Structures are given as structure tokens and as C-alpha cells.
């Protein structure tokens, strides 16, 4: 029987279980972006829709043939990511955040169902580029490398990855979207929605050539970011020689515990639905039914904006919650909890 995710206990926070190293959270750029405006009000002729679709289907076919799942066990934790084979002898492009050390042994899940051994080679952490090599010379199925510089706005593209992690009897998951922008002159932005597990999967042009590698997302479904494939070509020698460079600052500060609240949508803010016993919000006296209007003076309008504010806090930092309780306005200081030892990540 097909299982969506291997969740042995019922959980909602799937990212923690699926990916030891989930897609990193994009926090920048939120203010500077406006949705792309259509430059044409005309509709496409039905014949053109069908013609485009044929190209998309053909590209998806080629994309799936080269997309692999990567199962990585490091530091006693296991995580699933994706990759794409780009040579007959088994070089795989993936992202640096899928593994942390050159030499890491990796299980490679091929599209035909075979599981083979591979090894992590070089990684450029800041650029989120990494290379994996399948043991043995193949021949392995592969996709050609395309030209990420040649992408034009609103070009259709196909994206593949093991969304949610590797699932038995389910091939990689295909997305179809458009190339929308270049972020900070480096990352490729598309509206191909991804989630943890897609990391290291690939973005293809409609010829089925690899143009990008899935790296991170922002909250909006149409904001997905991919490493341009050119970055891999520029640093190929270093990646193939198992160099490990550009190690970024530790991300542990951001990815630690929360305030210990469950909230839900309400008029004028978010309503506290549950206070987890013994956590900081509880100790600070936050109560079920409180209406949270702002965090550190920045207003919250939805559970997701509350979580975004929460995510911005660092361990040990104190947040001031502006709360409405029984018609009165209160300010409550809550310290962000430290993650307990032995937790995920």
C-alpha cells in the first residue's frame, strides 16, 4: 500500500520528520517584491495551449528519467533530498544543504526503482551547490545541462523532486510553472511550488535540459528559488575534487524552539488556541483566548504572519507580545525557548 509519508506517529510538523535538512527558509526580499503584471490581455488559442502542453509533457518525461532521491544519514539522523544525474558515469547535482561533509555515503533512488550507493563530493555552502557521484561508471540515465543565463521571464519550465521525501512506489513529483525572476542576481525564481524533500531536485527548460537546482522557498506558494546550473559549471573542478568551501554561519539560532503557542485566525490578530504547559509563553502568563495583536510592535494578521515573526526571533531573545484580553491591552514579554537536546536537526 502506498504511504504518503512515513509518519509513525501522527504529526503535523512534517518538515521536521521528513528532512533533517529541509529547504531553508527564505526570509529576505519580502518587501521588495510585487507580483508580475501580465503584459497581454489576450488569451492563447486552444491550439497553442495543446502545443505547449505537448512540449511540457515531453520535457517532464525527460526530467523524470534523470531525477533521483537521495537518502542521507549523517550524525545519527536521516533525511531525504533529491538530485539530478547529469552524466552517463553518474555525477549528480544537488544542494549543499542536503549533506554536510564530502565523503558522506548516500543512497541513490533511481527512477527505475533501483537503489544504488553513492558518495558526497564537493560543496559550496553559500551558493548551495553540491556534487554526488554514484559508485561505478554506469551507464546511468541522465539529463543534459542547459543554459541558466538564457532563461527569459515567463518561460515555461518543469521541476522535479521527491516532495515530502522519498515515497515507496511513487516516482518524483513533477511541477510545471514559469520562470519569474532572478533574485539577488543569483537565484532563479519560479512559481513551481516546492516543499521539503524537493531540495536538490531540478528545474528544466522545455527541452528537458537542467537549468536550476531546487534550493529554498518563501512562504508564498509562487516564490520558489533554484540555484542556477551555471554555478555548478563555474566551480566544477572544485566540486569534483571534494572541496568544501563557503561554509556559512550556523543556522542553529534560527531553527530552534518556539514560544509554545498554538494560534488561530481571529479579527484584528491571532487568537491563542492553546498554551503548551511549561513553555515560555505559559510561564509568561499568556492565556488561551488572548488576542495577539503584535509581536515586538509589528502587527500580526494571521497564524502564518505570527509564525513568521516567531521564526525571526533568535534563541534567548525576548519578544514583546501585544495582547488584548477582556477588552484590555497588555504587553507580555516572552523569551524564546532553547531547543531541547536530542530534538530533530
Amino acid at each position, binding site marked *: *500500500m*502506498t504511504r*504518503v509519508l512515513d509518519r509513525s506517529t*501522527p504529526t503535523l*510538523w*512534517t*518538515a521536521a520528520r521528513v528532512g533533517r535538512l*529541509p529547504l531553508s527558509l527564505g526570509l529576505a526580499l519580502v518587501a521588495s517584491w510585487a507580483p508580475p503584471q*501580465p503584459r497581454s*490581455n*489576450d*488569451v*492563447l488559442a*486552444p491550439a497553442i495551449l495543446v*502545443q*505547449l502542453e505537448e512540449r*511540457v*509533457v*515531453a520535457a517532464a518525461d525527460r526530467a*523524470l528519467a534523470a531525477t533521483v532521491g537521495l537518502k542521507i544519514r549523517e550524525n545519527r539522523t536521516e533525511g531525504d533530498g533529491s538530485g539530478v544525474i547529469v*552524466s552517463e*558515469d553518474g555525477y549528480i547535482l544537488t544542494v549543499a544543504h542536503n549533506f554536510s561533509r564530502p565523503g558522506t555515503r548516500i543512497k541513490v533512488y533511481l527512477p527505475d526503482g533501483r537503489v544504488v550507493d553513492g558518495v558526497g563530493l564537493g560543496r559550496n555552502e553559500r551558493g548551495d551547490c553540491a556534487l554526488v557521484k554514484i559508485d561505478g561508471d554506469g551507464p546511468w540515465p541522465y539529463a*543534459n*545541462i*542547459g*543554459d541558466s543565463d538564457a532563461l527569459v521571464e*515567463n518561460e515555461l519550465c518543469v521541476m522535479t523532486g521527491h*516532495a*515530502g521525501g522519498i515515497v515507496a512506489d*511513487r516516482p518524483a513529483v*513533477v*511541477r*510545471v510553472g*514559469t520562470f519569474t525572476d532572478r533574485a539577488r542576481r543569483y537565484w532563479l525564481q519560479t*512559481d513551481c*511550488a*516546492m*516543499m*521539503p524533500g524537493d531540495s536538490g531536485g531540478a528545474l528544466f*527548460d522545455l527541452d528537458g535540459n537542467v537549468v536550476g537546482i531546487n534550493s529554498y522557498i*518563501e*512562504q508564498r*506558494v*509562487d516564490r520558489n528559488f533554484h540555484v542556477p546550473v551555471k554555478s555548478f*559549471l563555474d566551480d566544477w573542478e572544485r566540486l*569534483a575534487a571534494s572541496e568544501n568551501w563557503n561554509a556559512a554561519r550556523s543556522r542553529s539560532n534560527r*531553527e530552534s*524552539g*518556539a514560544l*509554545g503557542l*498554538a494560534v*488561530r485566525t481571529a479579527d484584528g490578530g491571532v487568537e491563542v*488556541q*492553546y498554551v*503548551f504547559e511549561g513553555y515560555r509563553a505559559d510561564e509568561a502568563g499568556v492565556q488561551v483566548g488572548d488576542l495577539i495583536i503584535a509581536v515586538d510592535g509589528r502587527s500580526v494578521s494571521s*497564524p*502564518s504572519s505570527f*509564525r513568521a515573526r516567531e521564526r525571526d526571533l533568535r534563541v534567548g531573545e525576548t519578544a514583546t507580545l501585544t495582547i488584548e484580553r477582556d477588552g484590555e491591552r497588555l504587553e507580555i514579554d516572552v523569551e524564546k*525557548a532553547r*531547543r531541547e537536546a536530542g530534538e530533530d536537526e
Partner: protein
Amino acid sequence: MTNTFTNRVGRRATLACAVLAGTLALAQPLVGHSVAAGPDPVLVEGGRQQLERSFDVLCRPFASSVLRVVAEAEVGDARLSHAVVVGEEGLLLAKLSELGSDGFYVLAPDGTRREATILASDLGTDLALLSTDDAGLEPVAFSAEPVDWRVGQWIAAVGPGGDCIGLGAVSVGPRDLATENNGFLGVELDRTVPDRALIGRVLDDGAAISAGIQAGDVVLAIDGQPMRNSESVISQLRRTVPGQEVDFTIRRGEESFDRVVRVRGRRLDDYQNPFQVPHAADSVDVSARRDGFPSVVQNDANLLPSECLSLAIDSRGRVVGLHVARMDRPGSLTLPTDVVAQRLERLLERAERSVQAKSLPVGAGETRDV
């Protein structure tokens, strides 16, 4: 070996670049009916919005076939589900698990508010067969012939008024999806009490509170099965799916009584792990019932839970099924037309039997095959 490979990749990239450049030079801006497509169209000048507008044309013929189902109690967002007209005499299909137990009405394409009742339901596919006034409604036919699904092909979602409310491409072909997200009662059990199933707290927007279950109640039995402790209640609930009616035998003080509860699904807001800030990917609203389907096609349409069910059509305007759930950030799920046709036939038979019997016992007309 590394050098050879670098050269090979370099050559390939140059070649691909040349091919792509050629394509772009040939591609005309794809605007309007008059422009002949270049040999290799890859650009849509107006992006996704223009694509969706193009599908509007294919959705229009179904303008009188998709309705809104709205909650009687208008608190917050009252839109529950969409319903698709499937038969003469005002027969509709809606998403069972979204209907709740507090009453609903349907909003017809002409803006009229109409009463609707549930005739029968199918837990396997989360479909509810409703009946309403049929004035101005046009039924959609679902073919029993399986679709030859191709990964990457487009599926548009037709919303009320015949608008394209989402455009997806097939991400994964038909497969069965086992139940991972079970029914949710909306209570906390007091696990410190070892010898009975004592309700410690009732969440204020769960199924239990609607059914009048209170803190301090003891669950004696579920669907006639005796419950010895919290664990047995939990394992029994794990066998339910959101939308299912479950019969609880409750003891409160000296008296005991039965309550039928339509269990709901859990959403992210219901509980959060205090140790883990939810991932940005978890900020998408997903359907309470999003698995446990006998056969579904996964696609990347960006639909709200309340936009399911909507009608699914392909790039030639043919009906290919029903969008039945938002699954996760990148995915929605579509019941293929042959599955809809088969289930609809069963629902109609069951509704007819119920009408003949004239009396509708609790849970009548519910089927489940897992």
C-alpha cells in the same frame, strides 16, 4: 576523468545554449488567436495569469454546473466547499468532510440561496450526494472511460460561474493514497487515568463541542466497541476518516447516552509542536481530508480547501474528474472521471434505497471501503 567530464559538460552546455537561443529567436510572442505558434513555443508572454485566462474560455461552458456551499452560521470564512451538478432534479456532489454538522445552504449561479440536503455519502472518496432546487442548473456527465493520464498535462479547475480558479499539471499519475490523517474529535484525553477514557478538555472548535461532549465525560464505547482507556479511544479514532459519523457512548455522572459525532480533520492550527517553528511549506491551508482515496491524480493546482470539489477539465475542455483535496504546498488531488462515475452510480442507488425506506437511520447511506 574530471577534466574530460568538464569538457563534455562544457560542450553540451554550449550546444544546449545554441538550441535554446534558436528557439527563442523563432518563438513569436504567443498572443491572440491570430498568431501562429512558432515551431517550439516556450514562452507565455503574460505568464501564469495569461495561461489561466486562456483556460477560462474552456471553463465557461460549465458556468451553470458549479455552485458554492456556504455554512449557515456566518462566522469567519463561511465558504465550505464547492458542489458540482451531477444529475437532473438538482443532484450535486460536494466534499463530505467540509460540510460540518452546523447546517449549510448552496449558492446557485444566479445568486439564489437554496436549501440542500445530504442524500448519501461515500467515505472512500469523501463525496456527498446532495439534493437542491434544480432551476437553472446544468448537470455534468462523468465518463466511465479511464483517462490516459500523462505526467505534465494540464488540468484546470472550474469554479462557480465557470471561471478557471486554478491551473495545475499532472505531478503523479493515478495511485491509491492510504489514510495518514485520521478523524479528529477535538478533545484531550486525561491519560493520567489508567482505567477509563476520561475527557480532560474539549477544544472549542472541534467536532466534540458541536456534539455537546464535555470535560469530565467518560467514553464508554465507540460504534458499540467498549473503550477501556485513552489508548483504545485513540486507536479507534485512528481508524476513522474526517467526515465520518461515529457513535460515541458517553457516561456523564450517573447517566449514559449516545452521541453521533461527525469527526473532523486536523489542521495545522489545531496543534503545533512547541519545539518546532513550522516550516514555511506548512503555511498553506490543506484539506482536512487529504488522503485515504482509492485512486487520485496528484497535480500542482493552487486551490484552497474550500475550492474543492471543483470540476477538473483538460486542455481540450473535456471533463477528466473532480478536484477533491488540497494535499500540501505543491499538490492538489483529483478523482479521475471513471472513479467519479462508478461512485456516483453507487451513491444514486443508495439514495434511492434510502428514499424508499423513508426513514434515514444514523449513518445510512454511508459506505467505506478501505
